[in-house]
């Protein structure tokens, strides 16, 4: 009994210590990042990496999600003659929930892993030490541009995902299920409000922050060679994916 309580206590203390280190890491990066000089070249490079290069992954995910959503909704709604609601269901699901969450999870796998691997490799090959000796604060140079790019790019990617997902639903509904194109579009525009889009975009900004922070944190603190970098990558993807799902609930409750 005592042994079990001690184990729970140890796990809880480890959790608190890890959370403390993460918060400290964020604030150190923030304080350093607010001071000049600012690394705009690094920032634009991250915009390109996170934003532009993720478009195919996010676009394909959203397209097929929208298409499947239309098919599944039709199967369910046709049982009680509510096929007419498919357009609004697809649009609302994509903008409020599936767009941000699926884009977040996909970007977590693509970008969070890449950040952890790149920064982790820099750590174990002494490149981060080299940065410090070259009079460049590593957190300012490596972390801040990634955090800013994550926060800025995820909403743009989610906006693209929303549009592509709704388009996917439209294609299946019109060309497979025989819906009238004009009435499908009218229903979509009638039911979707600006708030549906903005709530998804706000979620996306938080998810972008989570992905970048976890990728950078685990990469920056990796140790032990290739195995350490591998672990850092795994931790980054797993922790950011879980945090995205947890944050999604609280943000949904807040923005509902």
């Amino acid at each position, binding site marked *: 009994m005592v042994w079990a309580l001690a184990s729970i206590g140890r796990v809880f203390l480890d959790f608190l210590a890890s959370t403390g280190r993460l918060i400290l890491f964020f604030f150190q990066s923030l304080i350093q990042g607010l001071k000049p*000089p600012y*690394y705009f070249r690094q920032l634009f490079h991250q915009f390109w990496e996170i934003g532009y290069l993720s478009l195919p992954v996010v676009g394909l995910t959203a397209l097929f999600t929208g298409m499947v959503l239309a098919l599944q909704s039709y199967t369910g709604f046709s049982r009680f003659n509510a096929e007419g609601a498919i357009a609004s269901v697809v649009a609302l699901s994509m903008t409020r929930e599936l767009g941000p969450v699926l884009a977040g999870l996909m970007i977590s796998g693509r970008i969070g892993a890449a950040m952890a691997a*790149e920064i982790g*490799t*820099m750590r174990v*090959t*002494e*490149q981060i*030490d*080299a*940065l*410090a*000796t*070259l*009079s*460049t*604060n590593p957190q300012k*140079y490596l972390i801040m541009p990634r955090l800013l790019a994550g926060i800025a790019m995820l909403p743009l990617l989610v906006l693209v995902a929303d549009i592509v997902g709704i388009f996917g639903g439209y294609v299946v509904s019109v060309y497979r299920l025989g819906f009238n194109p004009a009435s499908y579009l009218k229903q979509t525009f009638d039911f979707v409000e600006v708030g549906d889009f903005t709530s998804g975009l706000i979620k996306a900004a938080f998810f972008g922050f989570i992905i970048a922070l976890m990728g950078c944190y685990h990469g920056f603190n990796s*140790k*032990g*060679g290739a195995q350490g970098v591998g672990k850092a990558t795994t931790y980054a993807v797993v922790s950011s994916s879980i945090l995205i799902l947890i944050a999604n609930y609280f943000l949904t409750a807040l923005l509902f």
Partner: protein
Amino acid sequence: MTPKFTLKNIKKSFGHKHVLQGVNLEVFTGESMVIIGGSGTGKSVLLKCLLGLIQVDSGSIKMDGKDILEESLTQHEERLQDIGVVFQGSALFDSLKVWENVAFRLIHAQHMDRKQAKQIALQKLSAVGLSESVAELSPAEISGGMQRRVALARAIATQPHILFFDEPTSGLDPIFSSVINDLIRRSVQDLGATAITITHDMNSARHIGDRIAMLYDGKIVWCGPAHEIDNCDNPYVQQFIHGLPTGPIQLETDIRHVA
């Protein structure tokens, strides 16, 4: 003569592993000090303590009479501006071209125009025997020996007065090692710099060093002029420089700290 660096009773442990157990050392202005010692004896840790990349547990490190352990972050960053470092694995930035690596401090810390910085980078690359064609390549496209030269060019790009070399010839063949040794010797002399090199390569130590110190069991067990090392009667030094399997040096078999 004023010491550039004064290390007094430096101690550093990682958990139960006591890496540095009271290091005392003086390095004088303009001299080239080489610290030798077996693998895992804490040479790299000592170098990182001097750079401020690792915090020591106790003791004092003075540079020009000022305790660097009490300096603020700004003072620390200012101090690093006059220091060039060549890391063991070169530590070149993969995402940047060779010339951008060399010009890194000029562009990012001294805010020099990229064109002007590139010209200086090309001059430094030429000084270490590399042609302009190498400048546009990425570090992954050049050999280990060339990477080490690029790392040296990066370290001397801003003409610092202090140079640190961490195992500068490890992993290189004897010819490349000699080239790097010559380049280090020449760079130190040209800049009039104070240099601290850590190595277990005795050829390198004899060639680069004015004085040599031997680190064993977390302490300096011998320190003297480079030309005296072969004739000294210290049993640790004799075992180390002749590579004898038996003697006072106990081979480390426990887990090495990964800094």
